[in-house]
């Protein structure tokens, strides 16, 4: 395994094309992460068609570089505008903005970049070591194990995203409904095609993802009345901070990275949640919790290390099980599929060299992010002033190319608009989008494995309980549902008391 890791890493550093695309990806990612209102998912959607003609390793490396750059880039606007560039940097604003107001913007930016670097490195290291081992384990999975693990992922994300478990489950079921359009697995029966030839192949995953994330963002930008942003001034010498600033924060840094990593592994949650949880954990463990919110480095370190560590965490279920960890990894799943690969246990056996190559490029991207942000902060701050009325229409044009190029049909572009409107309405009615995505992605695997399992067992469903791994996942499913219901009951009771 270590030979493969080393050769994969070496291949990246020996290929100038890969290095160039990783660099470009990081630049694009930081810009999309930094610009409020545009997320890393929009950046990934926009650049997906660019990777169509690239070699698989180069194209996928570029996409992962956008993901890493975008997650880190959010800290710039969080500190200088007091607006999180991405949902993953919400907690960074809690300390970053007060620090900037106190004239310490340079230090806040420097510490944020450093925490991002350490967080991403920890995430990538754990992903590199853990993914192949987990992939070997999942090779032993049969249809019942796959059915229960996908069922667990679906219920977990429905329970954990949003405030209402019912709305989370409804969102997942809504996504599953769209996934049933087209030909059914196993026997290829037509479902909900209404005699349309176009609908026979169903909706492509990328059309759904780009529509829900990028087009809905664009539509929402059109309907929002955002006031013009005011960038706070900053001065940054060297790294922006000294070793003294890190004193007493090393445990916070490691702990927050591990929190981010663990949350990233859970399907559908990722950096947008991990930064807030890591911030709360850091505050609870701190000797001076009263200082949180006034502008102290501890909060920035917690937030930025955790959201970046979530990248490696979110990649683990994607690569080993084909279950995306968050919105960005859902787009990456589409990227893998476009390049003829299906993430899952066989990926390491069939495309091992390519996977280690991507791991290597992620490491390279992490280093590029740090160098670019430390050296080119002035340029990124200037980009914050690029008006959205220029960027937003351009995103639509590029996303449309991506959809059209899937099968040279305008039908997919109509699909973009449909899912864009659905995404917009879901956000207006506070229905979480991640369960919808996971429902859409996992319905096929869920149905195929359930039907296959029942065929193997001659229609006996109880066989699922006789297998240890599937039983374990069923128990975990029940536990996650029960825990969420109990938490909702308690918070409702508390609200009533207040």
């Amino acid at each position, binding site marked *: 395994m270590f030979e493969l890791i080393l050769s994969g890493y070496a291949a990246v550093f020996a290929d100038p094309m890969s290095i160039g695309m990783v660099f470009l990806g990081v630049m694009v990612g930081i810009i999309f992460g930094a610009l409020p209102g545009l997320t890393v998912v929009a950046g990934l959607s926009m650049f997906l068609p660019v990777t169509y003609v690239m070699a698989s390793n180069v194209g996928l490396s570029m996409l992962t570089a956008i993901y890493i750059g975008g997650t880190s880039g959010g800290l710039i606007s969080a500190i200088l505008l007091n607006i999180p560039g991405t949902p993953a940097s919400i907690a960074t604003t809690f300390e970053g903005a007060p620090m900037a107001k106190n004239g310490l913007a340079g230090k806040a930016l420097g510490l944020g970049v450093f925490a991002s670097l350490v967080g991403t490195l920890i995430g990538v290291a754990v992903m590199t070591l853990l993914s192949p081992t987990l992939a070997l384990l999942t090779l032993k999975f049969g249809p019942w194990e796959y059915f229960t693990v996908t069922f667990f992922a679906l219920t977990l994300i429905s329970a954990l995203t949003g405030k209402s478990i019912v709305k989370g*489950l*409804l969102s997942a079921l809504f996504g599953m*409904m769209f996934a049933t359009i087209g030909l059914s697995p196993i026997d290829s*029966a037509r*479902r909900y095609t209404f005699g349309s030839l176009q609908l026979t192949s169903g909706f492509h995953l990328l059309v759904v993802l780009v529509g829900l994330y990028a087009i809905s963002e664009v539509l929402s930008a059109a309907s929002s009345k955002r006031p013009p942003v005011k960038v706070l001034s900053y001065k940054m010498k060297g790294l922006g901070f000294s070793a003294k600033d890190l004193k007493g924060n090393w445990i916070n840094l490691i702990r927050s990275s591990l929190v981010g990593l663990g949350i990233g592994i859970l399907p559908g949650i990722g950096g947008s949640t991990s930064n807030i949880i890591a911030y709360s954990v850091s505050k609870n463990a701190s000797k001076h919790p009263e200082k949180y919110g006034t502008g102290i480095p501890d909060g920035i370190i917690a937030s930025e290390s955790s959201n970046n560590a979530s990248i490696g965490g979110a990649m683990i279920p994607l690569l080993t099980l084909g279950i995306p960890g968050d919105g960005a990894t859902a787009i990456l799943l589409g990227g893998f599929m476009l390049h003829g690969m299906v993430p899952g246990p066989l990926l390491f056996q069939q495309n091992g060299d390519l996977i280690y190559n991507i791991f290597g490029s992620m490491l390279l991207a992490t280093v590029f992010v740090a160098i670019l942000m430390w050296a080119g902060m002035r340029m990124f701050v200037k980009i914050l002033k690029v*008006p959205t009325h220029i960027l937003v229409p351009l995103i639509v044009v*590029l996303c449309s190319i991506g959809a059209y190029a899937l099968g040279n049909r305008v039908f997919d572009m109509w699909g973009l608009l449909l899912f864009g409107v659905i995404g917009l309405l879901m956000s207006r009615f506070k229905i979480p989008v991640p369960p919808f995505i996971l429902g859409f992605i996992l319905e096929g695997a869920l149905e195929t494995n359930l039907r296959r399992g029942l065929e193997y067992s001659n229609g006996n469903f109880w066989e699922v309980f006789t297998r240890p791994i599937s039983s374990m996942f069923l128990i975990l499913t029940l536990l996650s549902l029960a825990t969420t219901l109990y938490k909702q009951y308690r918070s409702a009771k508390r609200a009533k008391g207040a």
Partner: protein
Amino acid sequence: MNSDSKKELGVGIFFLVLSVAYMIGTTTISTFTPFGNRGLDSRSIPLLIGILTVIMSSIQIISILVKEHKMKIVSSEQVSDETEEVCDPDEIACVEPPKGTIIQRIDNVVPVKLVLSMLFLMIYIAAYQRVGFILSSIFFLMAESFLLVRDEERKKWRIFIILFSIGASVIIYFVFTKYLSLFLPRGILG
């Protein structure tokens, strides 16, 4: 009932109606069981999804109605306790008179920019194949940029938006077709 509860109730009703329509749709799905019925057919999972959606949407509707009922009881008790006059939010007299121009009032309910954005996108998609990528993109970039730019800055950005729309559309077309080997429709420029 406040607007949040109305929204939540709307979500429940939407999913209930959708699930019923979806379940009716399962009757059109053909099934094949060449080796005997040893489990599920192609109709079973959609039916299961439909049933689960009915259950979940019913829970959503019932929970909102129960919550509203409880709130009504609590508020009626408070009203009887208090001596001063309490305004019923459902009464028309209690609704604040609308402010601003007619356009602003419509915009508060349905954002005009959003509707126009969707309209531009629809025209763009409809024209994509027939008119071609370059012309349809020039139209879309220009229309959408002029729509999104702030009113007071429109004049300042006018020339830039026009040049940018033309330049970006042409550059994107040539980069994608010549260097990235993707097919994009030429349309009437063909």
